[in-house]
């Protein structure tokens, strides 16, 4: 994993990825459209960042059908939660140390 000495994670440098992780840390699962509205981003933009997080095993994807409509929701993995917590701690430490 790309973790710098200070404990900051490169993956979370992007604000949208940071936002996605923040939502998923406090919600068991969140669907695509609600994520889009909460973060105020476009479909394509959100999808590419979700993909990046998924490929690094930080989030899980659950696809299901509600009636005939596909519904994709996301939740954070154990690894994702751990990395996010250490990233958060690192951010706080930096703020405090200066």
């Amino acid at each position, binding site marked *: 994993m790309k973790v710098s000495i200070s404990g900051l994670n490169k993956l979370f440098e992007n604000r949208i990825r940071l*936002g996605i992780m923040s*939502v998923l840390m*406090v919600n068991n699962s969140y669907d695509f459209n609600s994520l889009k*509205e*909460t*973060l105020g981003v476009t479909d394509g933009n959100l999808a590419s960042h979700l993909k990046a997080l998924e490929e690094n095993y930080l989030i899980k994807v659950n696809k299901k059908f509600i009636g005939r409509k596909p519904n994709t929701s996301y939740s954070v993995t154990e690894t994702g939660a751990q990395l996010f917590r250490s990233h958060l701690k690192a*951010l706080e430490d*930096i703020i405090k140390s200066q």
Partner: protein
Amino acid sequence: MNSKSNYFEDLKIIKKVMEESSRFLSLSGLSGLFAGLIALVGATVAGLLIMNSRILLSDEFFTGLSSDGSGIHRALLITVLSLVLILAIGISVYFSYRRSLRQGLKIWTPVSKRLLVNLMVPLVTGGISIIILYVQHEWLLIIPAMLIFYGLALVSAGKFTYNEVFYLGLAEILTGLLCALFPVYGFLFWCFGFGFLHIAYGLIMYRKYE
């Protein structure tokens, strides 16, 4: 921009996104205020309609409610209570909707759905229990049950909105339990729980968040 203010901004975003996605923050203090006022108006109307207003303070309220010849009074009381309930809910939804527009937040989100489920389960359970109490002529337990189940509903919904809702719930439960201990003063406890507590809560919330 130097990196420190960048990190600080990151932390602010995390906090904001976490709050907005896990708590429904458009609940308006005004709805509490108006719900309380409506409750007091309703109580007054009920009092005037059903009995002589000067016996409001005495336990004759319950003799009035439970005596066998008062079927019409009971129906009137229930009509007034239902109107109060419908108006209070309508007004909370209206003010929350208005506030969500002003805040630029969505009103129908995963959080507001969860809030509603957590509110409705104790509330509907309470409603059914009250119907059962009514059918079984357990008049004295009806008002305590209203307060207690409403309080439980707020406590359970409180996780998904402002913390103050949780404390309002505790206060309602306490009022309900006291009311169960002194059921002859049920009417006063009702006015306190649904009137005064709502108004106090509404004022606190309005001043704090709006």
